Every structure is written in C-alpha cells, then in structure tokens.
C-alpha cells in the first residue's frame, strides 16, 4: 500500500538544527519510520520544492528573517497539519533573547565592537548586501505568522516525544505522551 503512506515535510528556520538531530535520535526507529511515511521537501532528501501536498509539516525554529517567513507560509500552504517542534518554533527560543535589544546594537556588537574586529574594520562595514536576506526587527514564534496545529516542547524535544507524536499522527491514534517524555529543557 505505498500510496497510503503519509507524506512528511520538515524544515529548520531560525533554529540550531538540534530538533532535527533529536529526530535522528529515534535511532533504529528511523528504519520503521520510512516504512510508514514518505518524505517530501526536507533537508533529509534534497527535494527542494514541494512536489505534492503533504499530510504533516514539521517546523524547527522561529522566524528571524524574511526568508523564514516565506518558507513558513509555503509550509502552511502545502501541509494539512503543521507541528511547531521545539522551543524556538513555539516561542522564539534562545534567539528571541535579542527581542528586547535594538537590532542595530546586535549588529554593531558582532561587526564593529568585537575584540577581533574593532581594529580590523576601519570602514565600519556591517553586512547589508542585496544578496543576503533582511533580518526582522525581532524573532517571531511560528504561530504568530501562520496557524500551527500541534506544539511539541523541549530544547530539543526528546526523541521519544517526537516518535510518539509522529507515530500517533501517522497511524491515526490518539497521542499518548507519558509525563516522563514531556520536558521543557
């Protein structure tokens, strides 16, 4: 029944890829998973544009630049169910620590004031080329940009949590998330 396989897409926005790594930490169950699902657009397989409508989209990371917003909207358009995976997707996560600080101060610290640049950047260059994306004024959680259907907490969410949730969605069961696998750190 290969045509019955659920189709999954994943992406990493303003995250650290730790959530995708935790996904890989399902270890041997990866081999079970590929019996159950087909991967569409994902860094896992080099499918770069959605080639078909997907059942489940998994989003790691919040939105820190205009490209992140674009990708997230593409995912909403192409996926029936969207999951915010991990703290950055859910609430901006660690990168959102910059939300209380003017963006200009963040850029100046990195490119003008750092000890290895302050006497090495005489023209006071701050990257601004049209070839690189625009940074947003703050880091936005995904559900402030599009509707999100499920939230899996953790930094990163434990592999067992990802597996339990995904398995339930794929086979159509109710999610059974034992207290021990639901962690917020």
């Amino acid at each position, binding site marked *: 029944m290969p045509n019955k396989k659920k189709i999954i897409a994943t992406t990493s926005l303003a995250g650290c*890829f730790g959530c995708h790594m935790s996904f*890989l930490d399902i270890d041997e169950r990866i081999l079970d998973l590929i019996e159950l699902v087909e991967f569409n657009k994902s860094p896992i397989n080099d499918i770069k544009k959605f080639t078909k409508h997907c059942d489940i989209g998994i989003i790691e990371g919040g939105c820190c*630049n205009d490209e*992140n917003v674009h990708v997230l909207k593409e995912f909403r358009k192409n996926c029936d169910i969207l999951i915010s995976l991990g703290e950055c997707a859910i609430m901006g996560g660690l990168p959102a620590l910059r939300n209380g600080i003017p963006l200009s101060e963040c*850029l100046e610290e990195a490119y003008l004031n750092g000890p290895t640049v302050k006497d090495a950047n005489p023209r006071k260059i701050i990257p601004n080329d049209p070839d690189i994306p625009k940074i947003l004024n703050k880091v936005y959680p995904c559900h402030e940009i599009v509707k999100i259907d499920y939230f899996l907490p953790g930094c990163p969410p434990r592999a067992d949590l990802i597996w339990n949730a995904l398995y339930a969605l794929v086979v159509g069961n109710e999610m059974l998330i034992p207290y021990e696998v639901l962690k917020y750190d």
Partner: protein
Amino acid sequence: MAKKIVIEPVTRVEGHGKVTIQIDDNNNIIQSRLHIVEFRGFERFVLGRPYWEAPVLVQRLCGICPVSHHLAAAKAMDVIVGAGTGEGLTPVAEKMRRLMHYGQIFQSHSLHFFHLASPDLLFGYDALPEKRNVINIAIENKDLAVQAVLMRKFGQEVIARTAGKKIHGTGAIPGGINKNLSIKERDELLKGPNPFNADMMITWAKAAIDFFKSYYKKNKDFIDNFSKFPSNHLSLVRKDGALDLYHGVLRAVDENGKKILNDVDYQDYLEYIREEVRSWSYMKFPYLKQLGPDKGWYRVGPLARLNTVDFIPTPLAQKEFEEYKSITGKISNICLHTHWARLIETLHAAEMIRDLLNDPDLQSENLITKGTKAKRGIGLIEAPRGTLFHDYEINDNDQIIKCNLIVSTTNNNQPMNESVNFIAKSLINGKSNISESMLNAIEVGIRAYDPCLSCATHAFGEMPLEITLIDSKGNIIDKKSK
C-alpha cells in the same frame, strides 16, 4: 557586459548559504562568493547574563555539535573561576569532559561520513539527487544503514551519560563537572551486547577507513584533483605535538608545512587573530594578524589538524595516520582528503572513548576546582569542524560584559570561498552555459568542509542548489536547478 550567476539553496528557501559567481563577456570568472545568510546576535544578547549560564546558553548556537560550544564556554569559565586554563581541573573533571567531547567527535564525524559522504561514494557523484541520500542507503544497503544509525547512537549515548542529555546537556560547569560516570553507565558503553560497545565502534570506524581507501584507490585522480589550493592550516595541538581535540597550544603551518604560529598559549589569541567584515556575508573572515587578511587566512578541521600535528596518540589511528602521510606527504592542500582525515579522527575518537572508559578516575568524587576569580576567560577547543574560540569578560556582579565567538566554520569561510572559486574556474571559465555537473561539483566542494552553515543545510546530506545566470540588467539568461 558582466553577468552574474547565483547558486542558492532552493529559492532562498532553506536559506543558509548561497553562491554568486560573476563572469565577463567571455565567460571568464571575475569573482565568486559564498554568502552566509544567517545572523543571530549571540555576542550581544548574552551581555548581562551571569557567567555560569554561558555553557548552557551559547551551545544553543548549534544542535549538531552543542558539546563543542558547551565545553569551550566551560573552559573559558574555568579561567574566570580560577580553575586554570585546561590543566587545573581534577582528573575526573577533565576526563569526563574529554569523554563527552570524544563522544561528540565520534557521533558528528559518523553523521557526516554516513549521512553525507557515503551516499556520494555509494551511488556516485552524478547519481540523481533523490537517490543520493541516507534513506536510499537504508533501502539499498540496510546493514550499512544500521551501522550508521548505531555509530551515531553510540556517540550520543556517551554524551547523554556525561552531559546528562544527548543534545544541549549540562554536564560541564565552571571549574569542573556536575557528575561522574557510574560503574553501570560505564559498563553499558564498555561491555554492551554486540554491536553496541566501544570495541565494536573501533572495528566499525576502522572498516569505514578501509571503505574510503578502497574508493580512493579507484578514484585517485578525482579525489586528488577535484579542488586543491595552497593555504595555511591552524589547530590546537598537545604540547608534545600530538593530536588533542580537547586542549593544547595554537599551532599554524603554511602551505609547505613550515610553522608560522609556534605553539602559542591561546589565552593570547588576540595577539594573533583578527577578522575581516565583508558586506556580502554575515559570516566574518578570520586571518592571522601577522600576515594580514590577504595572506593570513587559514583552514581548520580534520585536514588542517592532520597537517599541524606530529602524531596521533592512539595506536590504530597512528597507523592509519602514517599510511595517510605516506600518500599525502608532509602536508595536504587537497580538499577531498578531508574525508579521509575525518575518518582517521573517528577511529582515534573511538580508541579514546574505550581508553577513557577503562580509566578508574572517572568514578572519582572530586568534581570541582576553585580558585581566585579572574575578569576574563578564553576557551578554545577542536570541534569536529575545527578550532572554536570563546572569549568572555565579566564585571563585579558576575555578569558577562563582553563575548567574542569565532566558530569553526567561520574559520573556514575564506577556504570555502577559495574552493568555490577553484571549482567554478575549472568548470565555467570560457563556457557559455551552466551544466548539471557544475551544480554537483560546487555542492561537493563546499560539503567537504562539512560546513555548519548555521547548523543547517549540510547535516542531512544534500544542499539543494539553484543556479541563475543573470546579465548586468538583471535579465535571466539561463536557469538550472537540481
């Protein structure tokens, strides 16, 4: 009329790295650029945080090798709490951290080889992109896929038992660690039922090297000529010149192997390292101050390390090192030798893990060293992808007031640009259209560095590419993607 070729991950979609190549009327390359399109602002937003948060906070830069950031920050904080510069910790503290680090080297290098490099080797560089991925390995060669999964899992389990958690752990704290290794934890890793134990990991790491060597024998011309250019190389080395990924002195050699930075104390890194800022990339360009930005850039990572070190202090990896050197000579400036060097380090990491697990110091109780507080601390480590710099200053309230981070892939910024330039020149110069093989080649060239382009596109394998040929008025002349 100059034209511009843009290569970028899927219509800016994955959006972490992107290449532009400018060509003149005769299709000769004027310039090529690898743009890094991510900016986070860590150096600013950690200011004001208490210093002891740094090891858990800054590791969130990267979920692929968080242990490197965790330990580099902890080493900097050791200096701040007066616990010495990498040598003042208690034996259990230093060895637990080393075990954590070699666990991470093992998992990260295994991930890169199996999930990334091996699809190219197994299915060929010209195979269809949808074939060249780890899922296809699982379908076509299940034994190898199981081995890949278990090698990565073993490294992750070593990390879980030393850091408390597989990703973003908390084991290292300023001045030491927060737990030792119980006998039970030790035996799970040392004496686990086959194949899940340290001895089998050594066997498998050795087999991976053999796999590469047999590939190399058949494809020597391709590997040796694909991308090569002279450069300096930099890494930490142990004081006696041995490979040491956790601690050492800074050494740099030039393209011929002559020492240009002679085993200096990294607490003085500011005397030697500067970074150039360019408007077209969020990633800075580090260089050796004495040589300036044009001549002073250097490579880091497995290739650079096997160029800087004199020997490897574990027997099996040393034997492989000697064989590698007999082929490469004193120094290698060949990009794809990086894969070979990475596998030799994987074997070294497996040997280190086994030796550390057998060390009774890991069950000692004396976890923390205290001393006289300092205002500044610098921590360096050899992360899987190369030398990682963390530099912090604190105030009287124990708040961080200055933070400087030079991450491994940043050190490789200019080398990756040189690789793109080399490949583009060899494939594009004088030709009027873009070929599929050019797309493949540039991808393979960047991937040899295992770049952590803000921890993304490289990890699961393929970097999706789109090339657009644009004239000076912005009209699209040609477009290809894969």
